[in-house]
């Protein structure tokens, strides 16, 4: 039996003040080309704005990019807000300049996947697809 599956809905964007958007825009294109529905929330989003958009758009995944070193605060904050609003079934993934030693803390806080610089786009696409299972 085959079940028709709806495409994965993914919110992508930049949280915090950092404006480096080269990477996230390439991810937008790669995931869109892989058949996912992408909502791009753009730059300078607060954690509150990210969570509100995610709930409103009924996404299954939030992907956030940070190159400013503020991941230690902003990512757990997004997770906490999702939990507060009963939306912690949404998977949160992150990418950017995130050093190895910060990864255990972020994973413990509930970030599902972290993509560091140099990750092939195909790996990001496959990993996000894998979140559906």
């Amino acid at each position, binding site marked *: 039996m085959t079940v028709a599956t709806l495409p994965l809905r993914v919110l992508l964007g930049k949280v915090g*003040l950092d404006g480096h958007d080269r990477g996230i825009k*390439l991810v937008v294109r790669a995931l869109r080309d892989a058949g996912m529905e992408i909502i791009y929330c753009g730059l300078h989003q*607060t954690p509150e704005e990210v969570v509100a958009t995610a709930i409103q758009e009924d996404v299954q995944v939030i992907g956030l990019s940070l190159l*400013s070193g503020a991941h230690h605060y902003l990512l757990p*904050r997004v997770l906490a807000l999702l939990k507060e609003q009963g939306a912690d079934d949404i998977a949160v993934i992150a990418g950017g300049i995130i050093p190895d030693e910060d990864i255990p803390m972020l994973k413990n806080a509930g970030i599902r996947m972290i993509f560091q610089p*140099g990750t092939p*786009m195909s790996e990001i696409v496959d990993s996000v697809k894998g979140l559906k299972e």
Partner: protein
Amino acid sequence: MQECPSRVTSLSGLEIDQVYSTDVLKGWAADTDLGNPGAFPYTRGLYSAMYRRRLWTMRQFAGFGTANDTNRRMKYLLKHGQTGLSVAFDMPTLMGLDADDSLARGEVGRCGVTISSLSDMESLFENIPLDKITTSMTINGPAAIIFAMYLAVAERRGIPFERLGGTLQNDILKEYIAQKEWLFAPEPHIRLITNTIAYCAQHVWKWHPVSISGYHIREAGSTAVQELAFTLYNGLTYVDATVNAGLAVDAFAPQLSFFFNVHNDFFEEIAKFRAARRLWAREIERRYHPKDPRSLQLRCHAQTAGCSLTAQQPMNNVVRVSLQALAAVLSGTQSLHTNSLDETLALPTEGAVKLALRTQQIIANESHVINTVDPLGGSYYIESLTNRMEAGAREYFKKIDDIGGMVKAIERGFPQREIFEASHRYQQEVEQNERSIVGVNAFVDDVPCSVPTLKIHPEVELEQVTRLSELRKSRDAVRVADTLRKLHKAAITSENLMPYLIDAVKSYATLGEICGRLKEVFGTYSEPIVL
């Protein structure tokens, strides 16, 4: 044996021939296209003796944590032979926000130094002789306010403004195009830029009030030609705006400066710098006929390409930086920042930044490349690449002219789209192994190679917020309100805002308070999204 590929391209996608000889330079004339170093059109460099007379300024971009943390780092770099300062500010400062703003949470002191008021600026430059060393400040949206703080520090120390040397980045157009840090719409920002240019022309003669920057355009994924074209077009936009504000070109053009990226394609990068000097000299001459030859000179800073560094096998970055730094020197740059090997992971450690500085010192003192000026001048390959760079930039000039100028082009997302397409093309080439990056898609190994990284302690934020709250309690609130009110009033008119900004910072009005006041008059800005 490896097969010879039929099509070879530069990093930016220019097709490159197997060999270059005289026929490629048909129509090119050594006297008009090349000239002599120190003379129009400056292809070979701005000065006749270049590094034989004076080395480039070794200027490492530095900033993290509190003003005291960064003051210590700057003194460390000076102790190890750095010859100029360059300040990196944190994200809240770059966005004109105080450290205690709710939008600053988690970002204070993270990717640069936190500066909320003149008090922080005083600590940042404590015991640093501002009349003897030049300082570059990478700040754009709130550049005029940070500059006002620098001037106020000098004034308090009794240093006359005309003895201050340094550079304010203050280039907003490339923010909309690439780096994405702005406070207002383009028009009021350009007014603030012309205000700083006019103020410097009158009071701070040795200062570069703008550093027209291609660096960030390239980091966002542009080609070398796009970097060259958009940067020089931005420069011409500022010159136009300042001339329209009533200044003669010779009153300010000698104080303008530029900033370029040095990426991996060695010869293409050198050609880009040479083309930049020639194109600028020709365009300023054609449009404004200046009497002072310094108005024609494109003086520049160079930084090795951050985006070329890899997190994989990070020690390899030392080699990349060395090659890029050599290209910058052979390009005739006036100052240089070399990236540290760990900068794709975090801000650099002391050890990493010292090695990056030593890289410049080795090129200067051991390689002998400085013995003669423009050693590559006259090479068929270099001269033909220089011609192609200039021609490619001129094609973009035409397209932007047709749209109606850079501000309109930005509003339509034109440069943003061109850069995004180039960055996508490059990424595809890497994904399909058409471009090799050692350690990433070629010569990959599983040997772990971790390097120590700099940690920013979370107490920095609390410390800065406490300091700011004490400042707000101890300052003269009536005076603060008065200077802010006067600033607001002047912002509504077309007056030069610099004197009002200087008064405001001297009353210890904070960066966030000043920017907040200006936003009441100037409004804010949202970018067109280009995907």
